[in-house]
């Protein structure tokens, strides 16, 4: 078993090498190589999933040193329960995305075939790492490979700008994580997880580590206020890539955050350790959900919904950290279980939804909600899978999204026991925000599915749409089945992941998980999704049977009543488009309710002057003010820096020498002043 991870990673590198040569060969060979790469990636992903399940069941694998790597930081791989939990997500999502790519991504430009296996390898290396150096190595490989994938898409100016911003944020994340790991390692320099865990950061170093990891991993996960790049970059990439970016890569970033802050540095931390996570998580959840309900482009909408769910997971992580600090072990385990379960569930249903968006774009030629509609008739299978995914994302019982949010709400409802009044008020506010985010997310998912698949067609192209081919259908159906399965069986899943919960919360496993139900505490309420599903099924079947008996007549078709509106003229075959709510119209109530302050939404009615027969126009829109506010000072700083650098270029020789001398003296001073520096 110890050789398996190394073997799988090597396989991915071989596939990348094969992909690199795809461009050199004529078309038929190129396509065969593309098939090989995608199929190979799917197979390796399946291997990862199997390995993860095996590790979860048997308790994992001890770290092994690799025979190569720099002498000062030996590379080591391991697979404990926490890694295995996220590796399971990577394996399942990677398998589905690989199958999808095998159908839709065969004739791609070859420059995309090299980074795709590398991207998977980077994520896997991050998860499999057993020391902080390997972790960073994998994280950077993941960042760069995913940047190559984002930048490789057919370039228009917008896509190029998105890729540039993506690279900027990736560099920022690296610039934050490297010093964070350095601080954690301390002067002893032992970067293995066991060594780091034995000496969690204290004092000012702890504050610095918290801030740096939050900034670094938070930027990669898309936490507010570092979320600006995510809705730009995720949609630019091709379907399976954006699915993995949104579904898995954000989770890998969350894994890094959980590993560094909760597992390695979480022991003996003060009460405020989780508070920044909770605040950022709650803010991300609300802002992401609100934006998801306003965006007009399906993939942008889904990316914003990712911000929401990442926020909910982060809220759970922060809660777990704080409850652990307050010595409320079982509650901390509950919060950690909520975070883990929701991370897994979101990774899978978001992969499903992104693949659906890609399939819809392929079939109906557009990503804009305003040119879709009525696709349920043309693509019933895709519509059904999308409905399962959207309902899971909308946190409807008994699907997977609800299970995680139920656990999270239970943890929040119990967190007042910490007893600190300020923290209690924060918990109350976070509870309200989490519920608000869940409801806003439900509205956004309804808008997404309803506008894309129901109603009348908004463009002629949707009429020519065809349902997905078998391979795509298998990928989508598998993911939809997983969304149902995780929703029905959270108890066994959390029993399997007890080790991961223990790593995050310091409490061995969820206190009350049974095969059929989960419960926050002994006297708390039970959530038993499988019996609930049976009950719902029985009731539904009973109703159908009753209605068949009482009202046997088959339904008849007739023109829509529509409150008595008259039939549209013959030149409008799909009816009057103005009488069907569009993307902006559907979003209007929420834009007026909450958008004004949070999203700088605006509305203006332009009326023609009296006597003019032109129609009145309603203009509305919004933009997220946060990224701009964050980036504007950075832009100003860059300007100032470049001016200063220009000045450096024409310094006199004497001054240049002074520069070198000054640096030397400064370094010597540092060496003399730092504690322990001179002694070594």
């Amino acid at each position: 078993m110890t050789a398996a991870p190394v073997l799988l990673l090597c396989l991915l590198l071989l596939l990348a090498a094969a992909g690199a040569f795809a461009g050199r060969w004529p078309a038929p060979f190129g396509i065969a190589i593309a098939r090989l790469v995608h199929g190979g990636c799917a197979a390796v992903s399946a291997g990862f999933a199997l390995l993860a399940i095996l590790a979860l069941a048997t308790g994992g694998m001890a770290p092994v040193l690799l025979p190569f790597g720099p002498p000062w930081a030996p590379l080591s791989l391991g697979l404990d329960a926490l890694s295995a939990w996220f590796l399971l997500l990577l394996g399942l999502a990677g398998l589905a995305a690989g199958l999808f790519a095998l159908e839709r991504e065969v004739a791609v430009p070859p420059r995309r075939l090299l980074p795709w296996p590398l991207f998977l390898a980077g994520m896997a290396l991050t998860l499999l790492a057993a020391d902080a150096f390997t972790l960073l190595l994998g994280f950077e490989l993941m960042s760069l490979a995913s940047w190559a994938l984002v930048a490789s898409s057919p370039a228009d100016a917008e896509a190029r700008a998105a890729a540039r911003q993506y690279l900027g944020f990736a560099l920022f994340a690296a610039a934050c994580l490297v010093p964070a790991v350095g601080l954690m390692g301390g002067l002893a320099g032992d970067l293995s997880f066991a060594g780091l865990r034995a000496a969690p950061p204290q004092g000012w170093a702890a504050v610095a580590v918290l801030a740096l990891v939050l900034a670094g991993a938070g930027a990669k996960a898309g936490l507010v206020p570092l979320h600006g790049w995510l809705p730009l970059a995720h949609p630019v990439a091709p379907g399976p890539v954006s699915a993995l970016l949104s579904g898995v890569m954000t989770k890998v970033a969350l894994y890094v955050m959980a590993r560094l802050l909760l597992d390695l540095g979480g022991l003996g931390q003060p009460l405020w350790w989780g508070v920044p996570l909770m605040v950022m998580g709650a803010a991300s959840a609300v802002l992401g959900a609100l934006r998801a309900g306003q965006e007009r482009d399906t993939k942008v909408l889904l990316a914003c919904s990712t911000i929401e769910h990442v926020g909910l997971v982060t809220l759970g992580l922060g809660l777990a950290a704080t409850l652990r600090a307050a010595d409320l072990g079982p509650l901390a385990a509950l919060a950690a279980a909520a975070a883990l379960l929701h991370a897994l569930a979101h990774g899978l249903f978001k992969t499903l939804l992104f693949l659906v968006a890609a399939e819809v774009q392929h079939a109906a030629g557009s990503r804009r909600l305003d040119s879709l509609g009525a696709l349920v008739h043309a693509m019933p299978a895709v519509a059904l899978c999308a409905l399962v995914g959207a309902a899971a994302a909308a946190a409807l019982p008994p699907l997977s999204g609800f299970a995680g949010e139920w656990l999270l709400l239970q943890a929040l409802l119990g967190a007042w026991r910490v007893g600190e009044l300020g923290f209690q008020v924060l918990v109350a506010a976070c509870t309200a925000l989490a519920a608000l985010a869940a409801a806003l997310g439900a509205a956004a998912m309804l808008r997404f599915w309803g506008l894309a698949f129901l109603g009348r067609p908004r463009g002629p192209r949707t009429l020519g749409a065809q349902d997905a081919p078998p391979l795509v259908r298998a990928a989508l159906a598998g993911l939809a089945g997983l969304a149902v399965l995780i929703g029905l069986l959270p108890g066994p899943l959390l029993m399997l992941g007890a080790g991961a919960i223990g790593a995050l919360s310091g409490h061995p496993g969820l206190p009350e998980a049974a095969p059929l139900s989960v419960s926050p505490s002994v006297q708390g309420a039970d959530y038993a999704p499988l019996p609930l599903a049976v009950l719902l099924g029985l009731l539904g079947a009973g109703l159908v049977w009753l209605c068949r008996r009482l009202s046997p007549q088959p339904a008849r078709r007739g023109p829509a009543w529509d409150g008595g509106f008259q039939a549209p003229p013959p030149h409008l075959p799909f009816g009057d488009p103005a009488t069907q709510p569009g993307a902006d119209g559907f979003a209007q109530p929420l834009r007026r309710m909450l958008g004004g302050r949070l999203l700088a939404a605006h509305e203006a009615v332009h009326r023609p002057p009296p006597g003019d027969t032109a129609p009145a126009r309603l203009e509305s829109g919004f933009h997220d003010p946060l990224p701009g506010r964050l980036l504007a000072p950075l832009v100003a700083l860059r300007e100032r820096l470049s001016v200063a650098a220009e000045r450096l270029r024409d310094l006199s020789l004497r001054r240049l020498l002074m520069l070198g001398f000054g640096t030397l003296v400064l370094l010597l001073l540092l060496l003399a002043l730092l504690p322990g520096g001179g002694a070594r």
Partner: protein
Amino acid sequence: MGFGQLSYDMAHLLGGGVLLFSFVLLYQRRLSGVIAAFAAQGALLALAVAWQGWAQGAPGLYLTALLAAVAQAVLLPLALRRLVRHLAVQRAVEPALGIGASMVAGVALVALALMVVLPATAGAGLQAREDLALALSVVLLGMLMMITRHNAISQLVGLLSLENGLVLAASGVRGMPLVLELSTAALVLMLAAVAGFFVFRLRESLASLDVSALHAHRGEREGEGA
């Protein structure tokens, strides 16, 4: 003393009721609604003070309760109502800060009041601590109402509801001399009378109750004003 005992339960309920009506004041748009809510708050305050008098065995508090009942619950609302009718102002007031935002601010202020009062009164009795926390919240909400409303009458009501909070605070503290309480009440009433006078003047000279209209008439910006 704790929950399940009648004397504590009732005091808790009445004090909480006074606070609740401070929120109703923030929520109301119409002047008649504002005045009615203010009257109800006064009546609840009178009940709360009377209950305190009974619970503490302090007959002086009954006088305070009577004064509150007469002045805050009956006379002042009637006078305000007459004022509104007399001035024939528009009945709906547009708040400077939105209803939702001012209520969010209100909840935040209550949380702040709790966080200030609870550690500061660690040694005092259960009843007094809670009363002080509620009273401080009412005072803060009265101030909030004064700063978030353009309309002079709403500001006046804010001031008076602030006084309700002061009376509530005084009633909860055992052994507060009656003189102090009465003089505070008189002071606020005087303030209210002065403010009422200014409302008349405002109306006469500016034909509006919107205090932001005064802004243009400040001395130092005469050049750009008017």
